[in-house]
């Protein structure tokens, strides 16, 4: 049979985000995939170097709405290491609480969407009902449901009181109960198992060779987590257990997320239990010293890296960001080959794609149908400053 090209996206009912995939199919079987990223390029890295360090906190938050807490944590952590600041212990613990809350909400979102993608609408509604509880807690703690604006250079912006702490602890118990049920469904339900098990196999060897990060790598049995490997904030004081699955398929990647939620709940409870007293914020200077700094955190989707170059003054010279989906896209492309068209949404959802993170760094050289390439030095000469 002749090979057909099946365009998938940038607008497609099975893919919520605008990204273009060209699947070469032989009947129902995929033989090759081409990914074209760049539909959501917003020029954020360049824009960040035109704004001050204070304004960039809110800018980095808007790179990705779902993992906004991870982005701000990584940004402020990098700036703090650039300035050599020591954040108060209480602020570090509160950062862990907010990070884990955001991780729960992100994981719940993608697990719900996975159920929705395979046609299990009841499950989708159940999970999103629990997610609503997490969103309310976020609002009570930070002041907004999604865009937390909680981290700031030198600490966190709000302190918690007893009322919020007891609400958080109560919610942890409720969520754990309802999640035991959802975990059972994911383990045993025939619908979920038929669609997820043995679909999109990514061997451990391939995952390492293609530099997978986060739950994708952990689903392939690789024990990697920035929170455990290179602990930041209060993760030094609260050790975490890295969840890994050896099945290497889409189901393992989803199960890593399901099990991580229990780990997140434990971390929140432990952080609130051992919450030190004192200040939550220290005064900092608007101007940063000259230098370079790198910070990395474990975002819900994997490792997130910020690199800031400062030449002194109020504004950074350059901010480079590497997001988890960009790392995970290359490993996942290989897993499509040999699968059928019906498995495309399941495999894509199993990496928890976030293309608005990814497309921030694309450089598009297409003009009047002609494509040419530019070296870094040429780009620098032409467009840089």
């Amino acid at each position, binding site marked *: 049979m002749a090979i057909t090209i099946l365009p998938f996206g940038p607008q497609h009912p099975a893919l919520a985000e605008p990204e273009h995939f060209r699947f070469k199919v032989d009947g129902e079987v995929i033989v090759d995939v081409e990914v074209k990223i760049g539909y959501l390029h917003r020029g954020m890295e360049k824009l960040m170097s035109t*704004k*001050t360090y*204070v*304004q*960039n*906190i*809110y*800018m980095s938050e*808007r790179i990705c709405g779902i993992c906004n807490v991870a982005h701000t944590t990584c940004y402020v952590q990098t700036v703090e290491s650039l300035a050599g600041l020591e954040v108060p212990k209480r602020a570090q613990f509160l950062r862990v609480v907010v990070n884990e809350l955001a991780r729960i909400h992100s994981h719940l979102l993608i697990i719900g969407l996975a159920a929705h993608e395979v046609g299990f609408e*009841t499950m989708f509604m159940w999970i999103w009902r629990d997610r609503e509880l997490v969103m*309310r807690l976020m*609002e*009570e*703690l*930070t*002041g*907004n449901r999604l*865009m937390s*604006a909680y981290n*700031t*250079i*030198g*600490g966190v*912006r*709000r302190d918690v009181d007893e009322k919020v702490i007891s609400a958080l602890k109560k919610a942890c118990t409720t969520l754990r109960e309802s999640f035991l*049920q959802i975990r*059972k*469904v994911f383990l*045993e*339900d025939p619908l979920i198992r038929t669609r997820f098990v043995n679909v999109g196999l990514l061997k451990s060897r391939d995952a390492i060779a293609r530099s997978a990060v986060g739950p994708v790598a952990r689903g392939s049995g690789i024990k990697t987590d920035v929170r455990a490997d290179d602990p930041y904030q209060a993760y030094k004081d609260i050790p975490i257990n890295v969840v890994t699955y050896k099945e290497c398929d889409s189901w393992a990647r989803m199960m890593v997320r399901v099990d991580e939620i229990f780990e997140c709940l434990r971390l929140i409870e432990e952080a609130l239990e051992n919450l030190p007293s004192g200040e939550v*914020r*220290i*005064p*900092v*200077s*608007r101007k940063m010293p000259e230098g370079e700094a790198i910070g990395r955190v474990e975002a819900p989707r994997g490792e997130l890296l910020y690199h800031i170059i400062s030449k002194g003054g109020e504004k950074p010279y350059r901010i480079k960001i590497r997001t988890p989906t960009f790392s995970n896209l290359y490993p996942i492309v290989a897993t499509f080959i040999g699968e059928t068209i019906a498995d495309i949404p399941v495999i894509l959802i199993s990496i928890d794609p976030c293309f608005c993170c990814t497309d921030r760094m694309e450089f598009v050289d297409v003009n009047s149908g002609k494509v040419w390439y530019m070296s870094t030095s040429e780009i620098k000469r032409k467009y840089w400053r």
Partner: protein
Amino acid sequence: MNFMPKILRGVVSYVFKKPVTKQYPLERVEPAPVFRGKMSFNPDLCVGCGMCARDCPTGAITMEFYPHVKRKMPKFYYGLCIFCHQCVESCAWNAIKPTTQFELATYDKKQLIERVSEQEVKPVKPRRPEKKLFYR
């Protein structure tokens, strides 16, 4: 299929519960007391230092000169505001206060611009309050 009893129990229990949706304009839902809503501005306390405009990440605040008092006052444009409340934090004179007001939808964009009128601005010298500032 072994989940069926549990699902059915859930279905039956939801028949007797009140609907979760609220009839919004008739029945008000208040946000959390710490919710970041619209800012309220007090011109009597403002000295026109412009720190709010300088720290605003989106440029929603611009400074406007009032000749009769010889001082600048912020003009808020809520169409650009992202409600991060950095201006509340940056104001050393407590002139900008947070509120939980969220109903800002309008048919006319001009209604989103909030500036103080000339009569409201009085030539008084405000006294600096006790407030700890975190950005220097």
